């Protein structure tokens, strides 16, 4: 966890074009810094006094437009299946959540995960018994592991297989960015085959 980056509120009464140009440059450069920081996890930003309502933007995954990304743990080595010590990992997944509301109506933003479906068998022996690997076999490490000012961003944890597992809760006017590294816990030997399932992350505020 690092200290938040708090950009100054943009003056709204500036009229000179040169002043607007400089201001645009400063704001744009600040935005670039935020975007480029892979480790940035919790950022407060100026709340718009004239925002007509609330908005939430949530992204999970890499830069592939319109597609649900896949965390592929690959194939476990035959002599390591179920040993609990060999825990396949996958490339880090970016989770980016930004929530805004009017300054007079700060809201509590909650990020939840629905992992109730598990990873169902899609091919192989496991089709016979219809095996489903519960998502509780999947855990993750986050690049942020401490709460910030009482607001909890996403901590190291595991899916619990529920339909609404709370992962983070914070006040609107903030943005959290995480690189999550998922790993398969590999504590059970399941029937041979390929398994796949989807976790759905939902951000909401009242």
């Amino acid at each position: 966890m690092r200290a938040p980056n708090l950009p100054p509120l943009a003056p709204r009464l500036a009229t000179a074009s040169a002043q607007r140009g400089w201001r645009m440059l400063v704001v744009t450069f600040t935005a670039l810094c935020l975007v480029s920081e892979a480790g940035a996890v919790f950022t407060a930003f100026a709340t718009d006094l004239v925002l007509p309502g609330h908005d939430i933007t949530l992204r999970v995954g890499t830069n592939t437009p319109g597609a649900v990304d896949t965390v592929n743990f690959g194939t476990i080595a035959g002599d390591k299946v179920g040993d609990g010590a060999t825990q396949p990992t996958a490339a880090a997944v970016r989770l980016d959540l930004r929530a805004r509301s009017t300054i007079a109506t700060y809201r509590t933003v909650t990020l939840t995960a629905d992992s109730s479906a598990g990873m169902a068998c899609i091919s192989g022996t496991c089709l016979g018994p219809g095996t489903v690997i519960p998502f509780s076999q999947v855990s993750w490490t986050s690049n942020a592991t401490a709460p910030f000012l009482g607001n909890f961003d996403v901590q190291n944890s595991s899916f619990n297989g529920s339909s609404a597992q709370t992962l983070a809760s914070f006040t609107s006017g903030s943005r959290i960015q995480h690189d999550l590294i998922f790993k398969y816990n590999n504590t059970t030997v399941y029937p041979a085959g390929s398994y796949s399932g989807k976790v759905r992350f939902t951000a909401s505020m009242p």
Partner: protein
Amino acid sequence: MKLQLKTLSLALASSALLVGTAWGESRMGVQPIGTPTNASAGLNLAINVPNIVMLKVGAAGATVSTATMNVTSSAVSPGLSPVYGPFVGNNTVVDWDGTTAPTLTSSTSTIPVAAWTNTSNAVITCTTVLIGFAGADIVVGTATGSGLLLPHPLGATNLTCGGATAALNVNTLYNSNYTYTAGSTLVGGAPGAYTGTVTYTITGGV
């Protein structure tokens, strides 16, 4: 200076747009004040579990176990109890009236066996290299151990190795014993030391 500033601002703004335009699954929710707001995004997780077959015959490890069967004789005098024998060594006094041929008997060797698989259609077959006797000369039985009875390849009661077992159950431990006894043809045959090797193979996932 002013032109350079605008150019720089435009470049930075363009870069920011490039960074921010393409996401994985990216969703946004916008609602007026007073209306709950949410956005959700999915993430697929996938893993492959390989085919695993395991077979143990005899002691664990790389050493090939030996099932030793000894043929012993006993002489029976009708009406006498106990029956004398087996006889070992030279010039042993026996109560044999000469009216009944001695009985030759093979000892039984018990070999622990175990099998497990996470694949469908896993079966066990065997092949033999026998010197001076045939597979049919060895009587094979199966005996209960700590787990399910592991069937012996066909023929199920000798070492003819004419076919495979029925498919083993998936993710089920078989832990029992094979018993080996020399049959009457071998027991009543010429004296000597006979040796041979039977190789068991488990095959699955086909």
